[in-house]
Every structure is written in C-alpha cells, then in structure tokens.
C-alpha cells in the first residue's frame, strides 16, 4: 500500500513541478533559441540526477527511526506550505496559478534581455532554462529522496519522477505551448495533502509512537487530512462573502 502512495505522490508532485519548468524552458527556447534552452535543461537534469544519486544511497545508511523523524518533520513543514497555499487559492484568498500569464511574463523578459555569447551559447537563454529547471526540480529531488529513503525505495520514487518527466516532456513537445489546461491547482492540492499525510505518519513513527494497525492506518490519516483541507476551504469561503 505504501508503495502505491509513494509512486502516486512522487508522480503527481514531479508532474506539477515539471509543468512549471516546461513553461520556463519553452519561453527561453522561443525567445532565445532552442540550443541554449535545451543545453540549460540538460545541464540542470544532470545536476538533479547527481543530487538524487549521491544523497539517496547516503541516506539509506542513516537509522530508519532517526530518518523518519527528520524526514517526517521536514515533510510536515514542507507539505503544510503546499497545503496552506492550495487552501488559500481554493478559497479565493490567493490568485490561482496561471501558466499562460507566467509564460507571457517569462517570454517578455527573455526577449528584452541583452545578447551575450558564452561557450557558443546564448548565456541568458541557458541560465534561464538551467535555473528554472534546477529550482523546480529541487522540490522533486527533495520529495524523491525523502519519500524514497524513508521507505528504503529511492528507485521507485525516482521511477515515478522519470515517468512524470517523460509524460510532461512528450506533451510539451507535441503542443509546444504551456500546459495551461493541466489542473495544476488541483494537483498542488493533492500533493499538499499527500506530503502532509506522509509527514504525520512518519514523524509519529520516528518519534517512537506506533500507529494502530501500522500501514493500515495510512488511509485513515489521508482521510483526516482530506477532511481537514475541505473543511478549511469551506470555512474560509464563508468568511469571505465576496468569493464567487
């Protein structure tokens, strides 16, 4: 059961971050040329693979209870950030994430920047693409490493991220436009729920407490976090009468 949750969480989290990275790579490619943009994408992918490759096996050497305590705390802090933003967006307190608007802004910025050639590449296009993919990808790497190492299955989490990469890159190649139709806000809500669920589960185990029924209680924790999230959205919407 944990493996199913692990794969689904890593896949959705990776897909949503890759949709954001794709927007930046597309803007860089269209405004500054595909060679520099794709070189930046490739360099960032290698850097991210090195981070996962180095840290993943290293974390398997840490005792499992200590790892679950630290990872649980980190995931809870990190997951609550996602969940809070998703709840505020769903209840109208924050604007919804709009890939089309972000794409237009990135494209305008990239077109206005000055030309500078380094190593035969347009340096602005390379760094824009590299930074975008690296920063969005770091969240994916963090999730892959923490989820994977805590369940002693970094390979499965990395496979889920790889599957998301193939899917988003294939669709991106086909449409050559930002994936504005992807239900990004809903996906972010789901990721926030999953990160918080795993955070509660592992932090409790890492702190030395035991769940009744062990793994069987994971769906119960998930249901609790889902109910909590929807109740929060409902209460916040009531508090904001202007919300349509």
């Amino acid at each position, binding site marked *: 059961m944990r493996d199913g949750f692990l794969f689904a969480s890593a896949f959705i989290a990776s897909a949503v971050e890759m949709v954001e990275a794709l927007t930046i790579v597309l803007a860089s490619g269209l405004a500054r040329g595909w060679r520099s943009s794709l070189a930046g994408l490739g360099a960032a992918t290698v850097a991210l693979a090195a981070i996962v490759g180095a840290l993943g096996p290293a974390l398997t050497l840490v005792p499992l209870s200590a790892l679950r*305590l630290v990872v*649980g*705390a*980190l995931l*809870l*802090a*990190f997951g*609550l*950030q996602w*969940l*809070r933003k998703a*709840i*505020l967006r769903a*209840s109208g*307190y*924050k604007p919804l994430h709009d890939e089309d608007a972000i794409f237009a802004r990135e494209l305008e910025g990239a077109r206005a920047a000055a030309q500078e050639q380094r190593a035969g590449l347009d340096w602005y296009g390379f760094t824009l693409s590299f930074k975008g993919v690296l920063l969005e990808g*770091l*969240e994916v790497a*963090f999730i892959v490493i923490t989820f994977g190492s805590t369940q002693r299955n970094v390979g499965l989490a990395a496979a889920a991220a790889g599957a998301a990469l193939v899917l988003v890159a294939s669709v991106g190649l086909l449409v050559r436009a930002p994936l504005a139709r992807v239900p990004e806000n809903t996906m972010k809500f789901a990721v926030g729920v999953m990160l*918080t669920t795993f*955070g*509660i589960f592992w*932090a*409790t185990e*890492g*702190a*030395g*407490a*035991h*769940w*009744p029924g062990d793994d069987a*209680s994971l769906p119960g*924790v998930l249901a*609790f976090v889902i109910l*909590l999230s929807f109740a*929060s959205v409902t209460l*916040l919407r009531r*508090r*904001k009468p202007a919300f349509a």
Partner: protein
Amino acid sequence: MKRIASFGRFWWEFVVGDDWRAAAGIVVAIGITAAIGSWWFLPPAVALVLALSLRREATKSSAQGH
C-alpha cells in the same frame, strides 16, 4: 559571506517558507509526541497549526484588500 547567507536563505524559504510559526509549531508537536509516545496527538496538533496559519494569512489578505 554573501553567498553563504543567500544559500541559507534559500533553504530557509524552501523548508520553512513564509510562516515560521507553523514550522515551529510542528517541531513542538513532534516533541510532545515523542514525550508522550502516542500516535493520537500529532493529527489534531497539525490541524491546529494549519488553522492558526490559515487564519493569520486570511486576516493579512483581507487587510490588504484581496
């Protein structure tokens, strides 16, 4: 020195984000869970931390006219 500071700031924003009180609340809640050794404490504690964080953000957002 500047690079170390910006590196530290990046990781702070990455993990803690814009509400350090929520992160501190989580650390305290996990500490209490470890002290009492019971599974039932953390879920309601997380609910409380989230509710307080949302209330802070909603109040701030309303005051700014969003």
